[in-house]
């Protein structure tokens, strides 16, 4: 029996004035890729923000390597090896492409990822390394956001809606790069609206509906009917 990497247990979270998550349970094993699906407003982004430390919680609600991290600040969570690619990319506008990547790497955690390996993964970024991040296309910005998270050499990578607002061909490029990233032994949680993509890249899937886990199972065993019931509640 492997020790789980991340255990979320009975997580309640509030966003602004309303409660966004109700007693969410979730588990990620080492090397495992989990997908989280659900409609807009189901609480997916709040769940990511909670794990990453952007929303304070009960210490025990989130355990990482058997250590309570629910109350830690985002920088402390990052230092333990969890990196978030936030929804909407959120690059630093006054930093160049290279500087955005370097900021991601400033924790100095050892591992395979460096400027060099990120540029190998996304060669276009090498050409545009000195460009202001605001001058990039949406897809290139998403590559920087992923590269920036990788630069901290995380053990658990959180990817929040990385295909949002991108052209299908760009989404394809990015998803083609994913196995190369996760193949390095990293675990990942992928939030994705596209159910097909979510099932294809993950081993297990959780479906959120109105802040609760409405379905969970192995990605290759769930039926369309089960998922659409859990997704839409019909």
């Amino acid at each position: 029996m492997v020790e789980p990497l991340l255990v979320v247990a009975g997580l309640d979270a509030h966003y602004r004035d309303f409660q966004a998550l109700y007693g969410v349970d979730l588990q990620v094993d080492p090397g495992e890729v989990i997908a989280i699906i659900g409609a807009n407003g189901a609480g997916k982004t709040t769940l990511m923000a909670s794990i990453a430390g952007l929303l304070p919680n009960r210490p025990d609600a989130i355990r990482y390597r058997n250590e309570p991290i629910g109350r830690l600040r985002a920088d402390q969570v990052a230092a333990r090896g969890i990196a978030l690619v936030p929804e909407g990319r959120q690059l630093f506008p006054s930093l160049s492409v290279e500087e955005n990547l370097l900021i991601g790497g400033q924790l100095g955690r050892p591992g395979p990822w460096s400027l060099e390996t990120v540029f190998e993964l996304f060669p276009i970024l090498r050409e545009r390394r000195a460009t202001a991040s605001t001058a990039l296309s949406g897809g290139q910005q998403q590559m920087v956001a992923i590269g920036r998270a990788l630069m901290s050499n995380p053990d658990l990578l959180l990817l929040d809606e990385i295909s949002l607002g991108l052209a299908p061909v760009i989404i394809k490029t990015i998803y083609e790069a994913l196995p190369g990233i996760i193949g390095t032994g990293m675990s990942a949680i992928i939030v994705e609206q596209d159910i097909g993509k979510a099932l294809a890249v993950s081993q297990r899937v959780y479906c959120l509906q109105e802040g609760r886990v409405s379905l969970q199972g192995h990605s290759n065993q769930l039926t369309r009917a089960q998922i659409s019931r859990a997704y839409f509640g019909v």
Partner: protein
Amino acid sequence: MDWLNAIVQGCLLGGLYALFAAGLSLIFGVMRLVNIAHGDLIVLAAYLGLTVTGALGLHPLMSLLIVIPAMALIGYVLQRGILNRTIGDDLLAPLLVTFGLSVILQNGLLEVFSADPQKMNAGALETASIPVGGITLGVLPVLMFLTAVGVIAGLQWMFYHTALGRAFRATSDNQAIAQLMGLNRAHVFGLAMALALAVTGIAGVFLGIRTSFDPSIGGGRLIFGFEAVIIGGLGNLWGTLLGGIILGVSQAVGAQINPGWQLLAGHIAFLVLLAVRPKGLFPRMDG
């Protein structure tokens, strides 16, 4: 010739104002904080310099070796102990807390050093001068000006070419995302304030060498620094230097017309520029 002389002296004085302003500009740039106690911190630095020179018998410029790190430490502690609690969407809290700090500092200095004007004695440096084409340039004002240029160049380099500068800019852009990158906002802000007050330390010692000072003059220094920042454009360090120069020249020219108009002329130049160029001469291009 009198006029030319006034303008040149005004330019040099502008260097001191830019030193007053650089710290304000820095902390506004990094954390959008406006520190009302900034002027009183400059005065505090002058008193620190005075105390150090008195106790150790050092030349005032040598006192910088102690004043700069001491001010930096004060800045870090102040930021982490008090000011970080006020940072957020609410504008009132930082304003009122730093206003309270200003009153505390002013009266604390009054208690310790009394209201008597003090001055640091820099010996021969104060009177030394170089004649340049009919104008006499004081060595001290020139040194002050060059220091200001050096400080601003240094801050500019730090901002754009070091990991610390990168952290400052990232935190300024988006605090939450910077935190995700492992940057602890509270610590980054502490470092920004430490750096700002280190610069303030230089400004304070120069102030104390150039003129006599007493605990009540902090507000005036804050205003000069503030005017330089606004004239130059928020968040633009070289603009701040130019703002300081414009302020210094306006004051010198005003004083040349009528000695009573020195300060008034500076404020009026500021208000006119505010009316004509509300975003300053070199507004920061971002967003």
